[in-house]
């Protein structure tokens, strides 16, 4: 379910980055003064390991165990959300699984949507039957999270599949995979409940936060739709336009007098590209030279 770099349009990526920072910031604010527990560390490690088994699905991204609901149930929504965000960050920065520009969207799906749905579903149903509650929390959490991922990539024009493909593909794959996710969630929760029940004690979370979060989550696809319909065009081309540079200026600047007939724009591009690479090479060697000076100093 990790969205790599290159799948999302930058405006959608930016929108989810903002939403994510809002919620994550609020979670961190709620956790102020608390120490991160060893359960936090071990759970992060376990979820990390479990997420490594992933495989590609055409028309979507990838399918794998997520563990967000489990984190929500065991750590509470705020620490759970932080733990998942941390796992996703490590995956981005160590394994390069999940893109840097897609970080906001990935955290939104797996660390916010999945964790909060998992937590609240479990809280609502656990009085009735703990194992069933954990199972449904795990299943629903991953399925909804996958649907969100489907919406994000489906709305993006960089990813040529439309919503009609991405949402069903991501949704059905993960609804199926969710059965395993639910089973594991239920298994771990019941095991912990019998051996170290005190780890499952959780503080109440205020109603206001719940309503606010639920509203944010529910509205985020609408925001995304609006952001996309404002119009998406390639930012690099925009920048060039603003600077008034769209007419292959380098070629003309470099070779003003070469109006040799037959030297078509392709060759021009090739030449300016090569010149660029040469300058990059020169600068890179300068960096290396500066390094050897620093070492000697």
């Amino acid at each position, binding site marked *: 379910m990790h969205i790599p770099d290159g799948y*999302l349009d930058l405006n959608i990526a930016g929108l989810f980055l903002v939403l994510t920072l809002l919620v994550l910031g609020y979670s961190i604010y709620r956790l102020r003064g608390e120490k991160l527990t060893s359960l936090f560390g071990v759970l992060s490690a376990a979820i990390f390991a479990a997420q490594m088994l992933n495989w590609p699905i055409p028309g979507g991204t990838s399918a794998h165990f997520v563990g967000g609901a489990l984190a929500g149930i065991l750590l509470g929504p705020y620490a759970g959300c932080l733990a998942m965000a941390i796992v996703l960050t490590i995956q981005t920065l160590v394994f390069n699984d999940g893109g840097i520009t897609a970080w906001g969207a990935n955290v939104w799906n797996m660390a916010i949507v999945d964790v909060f749905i998992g937590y609240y579903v479990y809280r609502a149903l656990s009085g009735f039957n703990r194992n069933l509650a954990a199972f449904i929390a795990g299943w629903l959490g991953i399925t909804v999270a996958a649907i969100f991922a489907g919406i994000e990539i489906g709305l993006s024009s960089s990813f040529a599949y439309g919503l009609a493909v991405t949402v069903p593909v991501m949704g059905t794959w993960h609804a199926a995979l969710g059965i395993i996710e639910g089973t594991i969630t239920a298994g771990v929760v019941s095991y912990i409940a019998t051996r170290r029940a005190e780890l499952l004690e959780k503080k109440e979370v205020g109603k206001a936060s719940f309503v606010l979060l639920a509203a944010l989550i529910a509205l985020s696809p609408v925001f995304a739709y609006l952001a996309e319909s404002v119009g998406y065009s390639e930012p690099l081309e925009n920048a060039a336009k603003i600077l008034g540079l769209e007419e292959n200026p380098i070629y003309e600047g470099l070779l003003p007098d070469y109006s040799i007939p037959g030297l078509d724009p392709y060759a021009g591009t090739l030449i300016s*590209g090569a010149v660029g690479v040469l300058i990059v090479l020169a600068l890179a060697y300068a960096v290396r030279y500066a390094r050897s000076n620093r070492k000697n100093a």
Partner: protein
Amino acid sequence: MHVVIERTLKNASSYFQNFFLQDYPTKGTLHSIDPRVKLLSTLLFVILAVSTFEPKKLIFLLFSLIAISAILGLNLRRLFSRVWLFSLFSFVVVLPLLLQDPKYPFLFTLRVLIALVSVQMLIMSSSFAEICSALRSLKVPEVFVQGLWLAYRYIIVVFQDIINILLARESRRVSKGSHMDLWKRGGESVGLFFLRSIERAERVQLAMASRGDKIFGIRSKFGILEIIYIALSLFIVLWCIVL
């Protein structure tokens, strides 16, 4: 059956553990650049890559990044070994679109590939501690960085523990056992391992408490080296715009 599962688990754990710990002793030029600078320029390169579908810009970017990696001391073989799988992965995902637009799957994969290379330039040249301390000095909240550091260390420890336990099981496995056993005992073993890890982590936490758990800042080393690297990054941005 469970012999196969255990063996797979053992191989996977060793693989991940090695992944986490490699690259420590080698030091190229890229390694000595301030990680904050690398982090920001990586971000820049990724944004460049994902904001265009123009072949000439993408190819220019790819060439530049590979040239920089090679000149500044990254092992290109290893770089390739770390990016090909995810690139292929993306190619598979968009392959069905080949019929509609034959260029699209290739350009799409190229964007993904360039982004992967940029991120690897950061990862392969910085230890995780350096990245954490860079994040910290870029004003990422302390809990978050602390959590990153904590989780990272536990991941290493948990993988090592898996390897050890599997060897211990092997040393006392005197009969093959049945499939039923796998289902009956498998779940319990996982749960027990989880519990054991938590309690072990509680002891490790005592150790951290006894030695302090402050994130130390790696001293910034902002100098001519960093300035030239920034100039290099900015030049690439400029050229991508005008190309």
